[in-house]
């Protein structure tokens, strides 16, 4: 372990810390000497995949990052997008996968804590959280333990801080069995003038540590996140930190107050790699240095070494650089909230991160060497071998269902489609009194108090599609997120993403990663939703099994006038149902194949035509703004039939549908063709709506009418559309609701 005093480094110790021999040589070159133990620890953590993005950086360059609304792109604690009137939205998504696999409650809770700090550190008040979660099968007791633990961890932390959890997604697939994914997104609101960044400028300015005391928790969490999970991972339990949401709430209020006071120069969360990353990143951004006396850092435990102080990942701490002469004022503000704020050092002009213990220098490293000079790897990539086998889908051999009602009921009770009420009932999704559209719709909508504006939020990714074809899957993740926002009546503005993949040292995983990013970039460009940042999580892999490539997209949209918001529920008897977009003969990657035919991931995902997507979204958004649309719902997992059922259930009303069977009935009702939105309109607006859709040159089909207590679906013979319709589904809404609403709760009992 840690050597005492002036003992030299144990040969090869850098490998235990996660550095390669070549990286160690580079460290020696930078310093012009051998590093001591503290310095080596600092390099190891800053050059870990988690902190340095050494593998992903060259690929992330594909993302478009600029646009008219973007105030802050990647590189800061969070992205910022303009919403007019001098206001902006600050947002970011981040993973906490590895900690959650080891200790689900604390892993998820501290994930929430970290992302909240990333947002309020920029001066924004957090107004919403969303969670994108992935687990194995709920039949497995361990999955139930992980799922239950993660949900209560999110609930325990978010509810206590008082930021509503308004949305997200949950999927279950075998590939996540040992590697659950916990991606948390936070959204904050800010006035442009209050934006603060993580920079340490102004030579001589005091550097302060504020918030919780430092303990030995989570030492090497960042390196831990950069390794595959193994049997020994459980032994590394100390790497999981414990969160204190009460402390976080105090820190949140105190930080916002101190930022408003004007005393702050720069501020940053001590996230992964704690004091190390916050100090060198802040110095590096400003081109300055930072000098800190570690003996001044308030601590929770006795006898902590400089190494432990620098690498501790104790939660609820911030590093703040304040204007000269204001430290006492800042202390007073924190004291009002019963928090400690201590000056531990100052900004210097020599670009060095210099750490002392009293008078004695214990580490001295050029700050930029830790950030900008971190190694970058162009890792080899090649198409995975599994791909051609899984993409093959002999459709002719798949029998068409005899009982469509049964298939629909099975789909509605599949945990991937069933109501997530069991989850979001445990989240306080109303605190803040901004939640205008609650969880369970395509997108959550929050009002911006004092204006007519609303913000629409969603997260999206279908990992199965990405496994079958990461390029198309990546495009669909972006397109569907945007479509969800459009269904709420919002204009999609910008993206944050959380890229969850396996071990990138394997060429097949690297290929998935590149292709997914390329696909997402293409869609982001096409839909004009630039990427403002996010997070990459590699090594989601156990014993050779990697998770499905899961590039989660978090998206923010703007509703200019909340009077023209839209929800998915069918409203009134007699409203006309129209499907915008078109259904193709596509079954690959569908939930239907899994549920009805036991094919978990087979075929090619649905085609993504970005030109069509754009047209559909524009046409629907404009129709909503013109007040022609009473409900709008994206057609996704489970296809048309499930989308119709969901609109019936949430509206508490039935519908009668007539559809020409011009392709296989199962593809027509359960296929997952993209770029489709189900809208309804009042009968007296039908003509105008149809005229408009025609002018916009988007394909659309009139499906039927809202009404009654059942969902009735009838198929018409394409050769003889005037002939007798074939009734394939006639189900009471109440029965569908029971199955859909109760499925997850039933599995969790």
């Amino acid at each position, binding site marked *: 372990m840690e050597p005492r005093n002036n003992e030299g480094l144990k040969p090869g110790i850098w490998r235990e810390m996660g550095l390669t021999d070549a990286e160690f040589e580079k460290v020696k070159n930078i310093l012009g000497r051998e590093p001591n133990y503290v310095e080596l620890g600092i390099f190891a953590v800053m050059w870990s995949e988690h902190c340095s993005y050494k593998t992903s950086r060259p690929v992330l360059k594909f993302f478009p990052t600029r646009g008219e609304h973007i105030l802050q792109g990647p590189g800061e604690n969070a992205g910022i997008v303009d919403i007019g009137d001098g206001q902006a939205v600050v947002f970011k998504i981040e993973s906490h996968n590895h900690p959650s696999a080891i200790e689900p409650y604390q892993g998820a809770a501290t994930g929430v804590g970290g992302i909240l700090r990333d947002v309020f550190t920029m001066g924004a008040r957090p107004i919403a959280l969303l969670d994108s979660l992935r687990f194995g099968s709920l039949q497995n007791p361990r999955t139930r333990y992980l799922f239950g633990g993660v949900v209560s961890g999110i609930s325990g932390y978010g*509810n206590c801080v008082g930021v509503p959890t308004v949305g997200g997604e949950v999927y279950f697939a075998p590939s996540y069995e040992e590697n659950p994914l916990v991606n948390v997104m936070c959204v904050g609101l800010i006035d442009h003038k209050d934006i603060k960044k993580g920079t340490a400028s102004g030579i001589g300015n005091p550097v302060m540590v504020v918030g919780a005391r430092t303990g030995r928790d989570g030492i090497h969490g960042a390196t831990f996140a950069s390794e595959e999970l193994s049997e020994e991972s459980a032994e590394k339990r100390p790497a999981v930190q414990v969160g*204190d949401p*009460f402390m976080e709430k105090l820190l949140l209020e105190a930080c916002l107050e101190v930022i408003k006071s004007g005393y702050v120069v720069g501020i940053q969360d001590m996230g992964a790699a704690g004091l190390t990353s916050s100090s060198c990143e802040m110095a590096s951004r400003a081109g300055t240095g930072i000098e800190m006396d570690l003996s001044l850092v308030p601590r929770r435990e006795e006898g902590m070494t400089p190494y432990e102080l620098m690498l501790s990942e104790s939660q609820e701490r911030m590093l703040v650089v304040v204007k000269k002469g204001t430290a006492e004022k800042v202390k007073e503000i924190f004291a009002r909230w019963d928090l400690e704020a201590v000056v531990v050092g100052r900004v210097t002009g020599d670009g060095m991160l210099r750490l002392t213990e009293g008078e004695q220098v214990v580490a001295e490293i050029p700050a930029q060497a830790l950030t900008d000079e971190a190694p970058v790897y162009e890792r080899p990539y090649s198409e995975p071998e599994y791909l051609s086998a899984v993409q093959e889908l002999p459709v002719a051999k798949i029998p068409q269902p005899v009982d469509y009602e049964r298939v629909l009921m099975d789909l509605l009770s599949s945990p991937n489609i069933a109501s997530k009420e069991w989850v979001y009932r445990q*989240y306080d999704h*109303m605190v803040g009194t901004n939640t205008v559209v609650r969880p369970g719709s395509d997108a959550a909508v929050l*009002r911006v108090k004092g204006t007519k504006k609303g913000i629409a939020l969603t997260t999206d990714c279908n990992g199965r599609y990405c496994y079958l074809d990461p390029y198309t899957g990546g495009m669909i993740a972006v397109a569907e997120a945007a479509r969800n926002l459009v269904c709420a009546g919002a204009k999609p503005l910008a993206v944050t993403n959380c890229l969850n993949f396996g071990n990138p040292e394997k060429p097949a995983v690297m290929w998935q990663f590149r292709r997914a990013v390329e696909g997402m970039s293409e869609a982001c460009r096409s839909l004009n939703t630039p990427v403002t940042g996010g997070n990459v999580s590699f090594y989601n892999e156990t014993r050779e099994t990697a998770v499905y490539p899961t590039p989660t997209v978090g998206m923010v949209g703007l509703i200019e006038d*909340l009077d023209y918001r839209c929800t998915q529920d069918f409203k009134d008897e007699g409203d006309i149902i129209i499907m915008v977009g078109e259904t193709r003969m596509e079954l690959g990657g569908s939930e239907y194949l899994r549920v009805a035919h036991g094919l978990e991931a087979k075929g090619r995902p649905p085609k993504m035509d970005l030109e069509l997507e754009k047209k559909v979204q524009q046409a629907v958004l404009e129709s909503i703004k013109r007040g022609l649309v009473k409900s709008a719902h994206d057609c996704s997992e489970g296809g048309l039939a499930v989308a119709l059922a969901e609109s019936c259930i949430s509206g508490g009303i039935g519908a009668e549908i007539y559809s020409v069977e011009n392709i296989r009935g199962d593809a027509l009702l359960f296929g997952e063709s993209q770029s489709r939105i189900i809208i309804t309109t009042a009968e007296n607006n039908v003509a105008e709506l149809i005229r408009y859709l025609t002018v916009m040159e988007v394909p659309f089909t009139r499906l039927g009418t809202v009404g009654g207590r059942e969902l009735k679906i009838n198929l018409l013979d394409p050769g003889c559309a005037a002939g007798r319709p074939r009734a394939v589904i006639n189900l009471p809404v109440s029965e569908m609701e029971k199955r859909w609403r109760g499925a997850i709760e039933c599995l969790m009992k």
Partner: protein
Amino acid sequence: MKFGVVVFPGSNCDADCFNAVKAVLDQPVEYIWHKSNSVEGFDCIILPGGFSYGDYLRAGAIARFSPVMEAVIEFAHRGGLVIGICNGFQVLLEAGLLPGAMRRNDSLQFICDDTYLKVENADTAFTALWQPGQVIKIPVAHGDGNYYCDENTLKELQQNNQVVFRYCSPAGEVTAQANPNGSIDNIAGVCNKQGNVLGMMPHPERCAEKILGNDDGAMLFKSILAAWQRRVK
């Protein structure tokens, strides 16, 4: 009429209560810091929801010893209007201004959802604008809302008409199924004997504006103002 919203460390519905008073009544409202030892000049005190002191130890247990609580207790004894919502209700119980105590929800899970309430006592300053027996929809959000008191206390509450709200079905039936947390006698809110102190788990401030999809809670704030106007006349 001047409202005061107490801010404990960890309160997180303080701003929501503040906004509701502004939005519904447009009356003066101010925050009262927990270290303050006076509530002079206020006509109604709101103890908001949240997790005061993290709810570590027991919900409301530590907040009850905040300096401001002495002033609030004295204010209540003088007949001042005090309403505790959610965590505020827990603080009132711990402070002894209302009888009973809160246990973990019987599901052991935090629950955030709409509930239907039956207005059992429409004679209080907080409920006077509702009809007796009226069914209203107000959301809950809590992990410790399982109200408990011993049998004698329960009898007393019933005899004195101190049960103000009961959880019920949308049709107004007080059933076990409509009870979200296991509260004894489906109790969602109680008042003191004098009727000037109300504690309730559901959040009226979360459903006080139309834009939020439900404004049933607005009536509570309007009732308070009406009662105060009657009083000062």
